[in-house]
């Protein structure tokens, strides 16, 4: 962020440096601390293990608790309810959101209209079937789809569910609420903790039944695996975190240890694989790329040096509009420079932003894998 926005002094100054002055218990005055988007690139970069982003996040939460939050913060902290409402009235929401009158109103309320607002879908994942795959399948997984797949891209969520069951998993869609990251990012730790407790209760019961929790959204994943047991300290969070896997990490491990044999067919694709910041922050490497390597004919290039700049709700706020666009341009140019015909990314926000700045089709890594399994989609998994 600080490389395009001089108002933000950078992670070192905003984090550990300023922290020395925050310890005296005085009311916080550093409003610029909210300009940090929590991409956590500083934490990955720091070789000495300083939790820079977490120091900043705690300062953001303190600042928010001591000051009145703007309307947008309340709105985005509750994206879950926004999604519920938006999808229930999907037809009207989508039609309304694209009108210039509504756009003008949104700008007045402090929202950015650089990107089209994500469209909502009525037939969300939690309205669809809750189980798929044979009951006796050797691999049992509980899919934490998160809000984006549920409300905005249930079609993609169903694709991932079907991919998993096609590859021999018993997939359940556990009852779930928002992971809580948007609430944390918008300064509302109470909402985040409530969501976390609800999810840990439900997911924990599936873990007890021998299921692994899988996530596709890497930001949800980071919240489940890191924030639940650490920052939020939810009871039972550790057990859930230990049994939570990225979808591709899970598949790649199963392929490597021989429990899953996949016959990848050839594809004719050239993809720029943009690594979401939160996938980097998980520290598990780039599991989808490990699967990509096995797909004949797939040409792909990993791009992990740039943040897309949207950072969930960050870029949808008018005050961050310029920062977000400048970063989106940089990341988009890096993608275009590869000459790829499509981009792939695990994160819904990254895809929205980069599709806008490159004009390229934006795929989920699972869609690339499905493409290579396409020639024989009717073939039942043996």
């Amino acid at each position, binding site marked *: 962020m*600080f490389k395009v926005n001089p108002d933000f002094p950078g992670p070192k100054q905003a984090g550990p440096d300023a922290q020395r002055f925050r310890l005296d218990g005085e009311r916080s005055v550093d409003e610029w601390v909210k300009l940090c988007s929590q991409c956590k690139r500083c934490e990955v970069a*720091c*070789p000495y293990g300083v939790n820079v982003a977490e120091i900043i996040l705690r300062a953001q939460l303190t600042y928010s608790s001591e000051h009145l939050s703007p309307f947008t913060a309340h709105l985005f902290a509750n994206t879950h309810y926004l999604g519920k409402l938006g999808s229930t009235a999907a037809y009207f929401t989508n039609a309304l959101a694209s009108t210039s009158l509504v756009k003008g109103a949104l700008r007045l309320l402090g929202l950015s209209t650089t990107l089209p607002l994500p469209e909502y879908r009525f037939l969300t994942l939690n309205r669809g079937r809750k189980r798929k795959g044979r009951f006796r399948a050797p691999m049992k997984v509980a899919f934490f789809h998160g809000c984006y797949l549920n409300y905005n891209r249930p079609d993609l969520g169903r694709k991932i569910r079907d991919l998993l069951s096609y590859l021999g998993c018993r997939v359940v869609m556990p009852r779930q609420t928002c992971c809580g990251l948007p609430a944390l990012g918008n300064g509302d730790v109470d909402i985040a903790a409530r969501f976390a407790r609800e999810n840990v209760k439900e997911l924990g019961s599936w873990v007890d039944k021998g299921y692994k929790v899988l996530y596709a959204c890497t930001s949800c994943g980071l919240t489940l695996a890191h924030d639940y047991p650490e920052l939020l300290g939810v009871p039972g969070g550790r057990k859930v975190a230990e049994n939570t896997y990225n979808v591709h990490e899970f598949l790649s*491990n199963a392929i*490597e240890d021989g429990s899953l044999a996949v016959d990848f067919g050839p594809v004719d694709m050239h993809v720029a694989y943009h690594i979401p910041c939160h996938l980097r922050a998980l*520290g598990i*490497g*780039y599991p989808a790329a490990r699967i990509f390597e096995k797909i004949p004919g797939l040409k792909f290039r990993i791009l*992990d040096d740039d943040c897309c700049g949207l950072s969930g709700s960050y870029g949808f706020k008018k005050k961050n509009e310029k920062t977000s666009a*400048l970063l989106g341009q940089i990341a988009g140019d890096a993608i275009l420079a590869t000459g790829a015909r499509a981009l792939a990314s695990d994160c819904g926000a990254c895809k929205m932003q980069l599709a806008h700045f490159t004009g390229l089709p934006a795929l989920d890594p699972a869609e690339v894998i499905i493409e290579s399994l396409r020639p024989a989609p009717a073939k039942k998994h043996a």
Partner: protein
Amino acid sequence: MSAYEYDVVVVGGGVSGITAALTLAEKGLKVALISKGDPVCCLSTGCVDVMTGEGDPWQKIGELPAGHPYVKAGDDALRDGLVFFLRIMEEQGLPYVGSLTENRPIITPIGTVKHTCLVPVTMAASDLAKSERLHVVSFKGIKDFYPSYLTNGISRSSFSVFDAGISTTLGIASRFEDEGFLGRFISWLQDTENPHDRIAVPAVLGLRDPVKVMERISKAMGRPVFEIPTLPPSIPGLRLFRALKGALQAKGGHLYWGKGVSSIERQGSEIEAVTLATAGRAARVQGRAFILATGSFVSGGLYAGRDAVRETVFGLPVFVPGERREWFHAQFFTPGHAIEKAGIVVDDCFRPAGGKLKNLYVCGSILAESEVMKNQCGHGLAIATGVAAARMCARGLA
């Protein structure tokens, strides 16, 4: 659930570790690279120092004691390594120039001249002749870059200051990626009438394609333009790191970035796997062989506690030059503090001496007797020992 099995797992993501990983990946081996963060090469000038001073670096290498890692690695490893490095950087669009047998001068931000072996092409024109007039461009608010240091040190020089609207080196470098900004900078430079022969700027001419930026300015001004390395954070260091990392990814190497090794699994004299302190649950990375390239004290490969100096990943025995009171000269700036000799002693195969671990190899500044500061041989030593350790490792696996 078991994880991926690699042929080689390299621990340490600096120049040495990536060079070793690249060497092995080019041999068709499956390589993982683990680093707990961005390496100290991001703080370096980006130049490849082989041995300090003017003239032929090989001559000085010939004067090193027999235990020095350069001597252990042999001339071939250094020569092949530098040629390999030049090819990789060319492929990555960040070409380097320089002669392997004759150091070349670069200008430092305090106006002195330093001699080094290979430099990024954006610093190629810093071989300023005495008769030439230099114009230094600085940026408003930029930290630790004082053009008057340069104009005082270099006769027949002047400076001017451009307002980039942002003052961090990373910020200015990002602006230079933008065509509009570059155009405004060039027209401003054209307006500041100067009759000078060459133009110097702090090293901020873009992150991804600095060569293009430099050439655009140079062409518009009709005279050579070159970059002067800055104090950290160093953009040429960051570019070097990103290029090496990109090269490794392009050759199929897997990166595990941001988390350190939390434990090791050992079976007799072989290391089987390391685990990483990843979010939620430790990730296990297993390999047939391992390379340690975590660097010296600054990068955390070595840690000096009150009682002893420790190697931080595998707990290898560390050579330490005498008692603590013998580690330092009385004066800080006297070159060659004894503690610089601290590190891991290796056998001729670059395995830890003593023969207790058969599938672990060591390279880079963590090697005993390196004395990187005294010899100013940082990236050169990293490259030579990286190649040498990788060759030994490949031989061990064959």
